[in-house]
């Protein structure tokens, strides 16, 4: 998974001190790459919990006939947590950034890196 980790490192460099965590996660809730730079942000727990969030998002969108889910953005008083499905939806990737981050930029990066990450996952 070195290639995936390299891509995440590249993203981390782009975001600088705003970067908190990023992981590529299977829909079983297990991360195959990534991690957190903030000891208070548990990347493993986040991967597991947000797999459930993304599954429910897909279910809700299906029930409301709104098409496939692209991404989800949670804003708390500490961080932004973005999650986005990759490829065929068997993986998603999540990123946490500080509230100082430029949200538009982060969303754009999420979108840009999605294809690269999907292609780097061994199939």
């Amino acid at each position, binding site marked *: 998974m070195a290639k995936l980790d390299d891509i995440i490192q590249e993203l981390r460099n782009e975001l600088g001190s705003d970067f908190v965590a990023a992981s590529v996660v299977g829909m079983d809730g297990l991360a195959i790459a990534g991690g957190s730079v903030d000891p208070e942000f548990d990347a493993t727990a986040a991967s597991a919990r947000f797999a459930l969030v993304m599954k429910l998002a897909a279910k809700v969108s299906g029930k*409301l006939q709104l098409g496939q889910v692209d991404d989800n953005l949670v804003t708390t008083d500490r961080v932004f947590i973005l999650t986005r499905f990759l490829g065929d939806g068997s993986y998603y990737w999540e990123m*946490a950034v500080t509230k100082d981050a430029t949200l538009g930029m982060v969303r754009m990066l999420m979108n840009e890196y999605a294809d690269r990450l999907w292609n780097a996952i061994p199939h």
Partner: protein
Amino acid sequence: MPLAGSLHDIALTDLIQITCQENRQARLVVQHEGKEAEIFFDGGNIVHARLDDLEGEEVIHQLLGWAEGEFHLESDVAPPTRTIETPWSALLMQGLQRYDELQWEASQLTTEEDNDMASTQASLQNLLTELGQEIQGFIAAAVVGMDGFGIANHAVDAKVQVESINAQMTMFTKLVQTSTTKLKAGNIEDNLLTTEQAIILVRFLEDDNYYLSIVADRSKANIGNLRLYSRLYAEQLSKAIPH
């Protein structure tokens, strides 16, 4: 032989009228919700009434409000004292008039509460309508309780199933809220879900018991505009909700 029965079958006013017209000396015992009252009749009039520590005309006024209960009427029971001088017909008239006044006041209070509720709903509705005019690609907005029920909704089209959106998004929002809490990632302010066709923004209102939900057309909406107006209107909506 005592006459006994239920006030459901014969009204207290009828019982009083019949007993007085028969010029009976009698004692009427009425039981209602664990209370017991006595009315004494003599010479075609009510002469005494007692309910707990209360005696006299006021007892009759109170008993006229008892629509349900049991009674028994015993003849030839002498009154222990005389506390009522007013003729029975005048007494009933006064009592019924007072009962009607109390009923009217109660209905006025209910109407005031209903009016307050209607006015709150109208304020929320107006704010949601205004909000809809500010959002590009607006589809629907609602103020929703964490039980999944909307207290005010506004949609551009009656076909939009706002109740369904409210129920589904509440379930989803609760999971997001639990996840961020367990991760100690801070208190959730809003959640933005983007699908192929729509953008759904959920923003918590002041006390976290309600949230504002906005659904916009993905192809027309602007996320920055959506987040900005949701923030501005969340404040006003929070103020309009009674606490």
